């Protein structure tokens, strides 16, 4: 039954008439489901098949509104069905439905051509948004936590809700506007859906192509996208990978950084500490 329920729908969002081995699906359904006076076995099974797809599509569409807006409805829906067939949910929560989308898009660029790079930017940013929404926020590092630790050997831990992204296109403002103008993400429930909530999406054009660095994080329960300078990104990424402070700062050599290096880096750290991005020391 699970295989039938999770099998992609046919054209017109109905259950496929032919089974995987070429037999009529009707025959498969009749083998284990009773008909009643109003519905055939096939029709009863089809209720579950449609319900499965309506539910996971709705959730996926809500999570990836930006990706949908740059690809257009038809192309996005084809991509969604292909991705969800290849990577069905392996988590108790629908929150993780898109956890393997970036991997899928990298492996199969045909679904996003010719906007592959832009699509990857959006997929990364929208996943980072999900992570920022409910990943842990650990207690922020205090000055006394650093007492007695040799400064050069310090390895700072960054908050689990913080994601650092290198993007090829400027997509943050676009996504902020899009998320502001739409409703809340579907929550888990035990209710069935009558129909799929299909909303037409306005195709987005003219996003600026320019390499940029972004930090996606949570602050006082709001989700924020913070543009970073290259030097900031390099430093934070090194720390996130577990580098000591000494080695992380050494990565700034050769980069163009305005003003006095020590003073500038000091300001950066003060700002990140104020945002609570540091949450402990790596042992």
């Amino acid at each position, binding site marked *: 039954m699970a295989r039938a329920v999770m099998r992609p729908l046919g054209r017109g969002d109905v259950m496929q008439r032919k089974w995987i081995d070429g037999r009529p699906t009707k025959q498969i359904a009749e083998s284990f489901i009773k008909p009643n006076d109003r519905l055939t076995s096939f029709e009863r099974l089809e209720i579950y098949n449609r319900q499965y797809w309506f539910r996971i599509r709705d959730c996926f569409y809500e999570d990836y509104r930006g990706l949908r807006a740059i690809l257009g409805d038809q192309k996005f829906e084809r991509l969604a069905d292909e991705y969800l067939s290849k990577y069905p949910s392996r988590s108790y929560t629908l929150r993780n439905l898109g956890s393997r989308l970036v991997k899928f898009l990298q492996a199969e660029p045909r679904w996003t051509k010719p906007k592959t790079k832009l699509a990857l930017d959006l997929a990364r940013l929208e996943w980072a948004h999900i992570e920022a929404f409910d990943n842990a926020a650990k207690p922020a590092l205090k000055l006394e936590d650093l007492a007695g630790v040799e400064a050069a050997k310090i390895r700072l831990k960054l908050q689990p809700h913080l994601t650092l992204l290198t993007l090829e296109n400027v997509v943050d403002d676009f996504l902020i506007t899009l998320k502001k103008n739409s409703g809340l993400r579907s929550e888990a429930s*035990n209710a069935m859906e*009558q129909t799929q909530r299909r909303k037409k999406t306005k195709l987005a054009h003219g996003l600026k192509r320019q390499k940029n660095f972004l930090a996606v994080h949570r602050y006082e329960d709001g989700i924020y996208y913070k543009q970073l300078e290259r030097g900031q990104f390099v430093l934070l990424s090194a720390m996130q990978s577990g580098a000591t402070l000494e080695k992380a700062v050494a990565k700034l050599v050769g980069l163009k950084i305005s003003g006095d290096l020590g003073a500038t880096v000091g300001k950066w750290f003060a700002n990140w500490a104020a945002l609570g991005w540091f949450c402990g020391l790596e042992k």
Partner: protein
Amino acid sequence: MPANPFNGFTDYGIGIGLRVPHYEHILSQKPTVDWFEIISENFMGDGGRPLKVLDQILEQYRVVQHGVSMYFGSSEKLNRDHLKKIKRLVKRTKTPWLSDHLCWGSVDGRYTHDLLPMPYTFAAAKVTAQRIREARDFLEVPIGVENVSSYAEFHVSEMTEWEFLNEVVERADCGILLDVNNIYVSSKNHNFNPLDYVNGVPADRVAQIHIAGHSKFQKYILDTHDHPVIDPVWKLYERAIQRTGRTATLLEWDDRIPSFDEVHGEALKANQFLKRVESAKTKA
């Protein structure tokens, strides 16, 4: 029988499901509500707004956890990481009991996120009861299993749905979350008398009752939780409480959610039936 071992010997009255569109109203107006039911999975992240809101709710209200993904009827082993997260939430909410569905929904690690109907066989009852026991032992809180609404029946079934429910809860020694709307929906979809179901479950195991609305189509009824409760479902509710006595009752409204006052008002209609049943008992 307001309090029994299956609801932690509580007397919780009439509650409603805690839903996002009502957060602002509840937190700012602090309306009087007996209790809220939360969908556990919506609060099992590691941080962020959901848990912050939940903590604010917990300062003012009693909360009971209701799950949608334990899948007691699945045949694979219970997922320990998942159970640990539920237990962490149990400690936070101090829920006196928790519930999930008598259904399956995952296979080979893949999740359908649906409440799929079970074949009503003795073998399935045995496996399901074992999983309920394991979950209860791990979570250290009473468990109530909820009857689901269904749209398909299996050739291999050896008994009625309520006989299967009884078989499972007796074997697991657990409670029942009796959803009278689900009984109504399934009775129409499968042509049985819903009163036979309500009369057929062990009243002393009913920890909680669910009421809800649904959508009627030409050939079947779908459990959409997007309408008020219809009269035939209220009648089933009345019959259920005649048998069980005053029992924790909860209205589910999950789609096209109206104002808080409308949802709460709909739930409070249950009081009419509770009073009627209690006054009939007093007269008798």
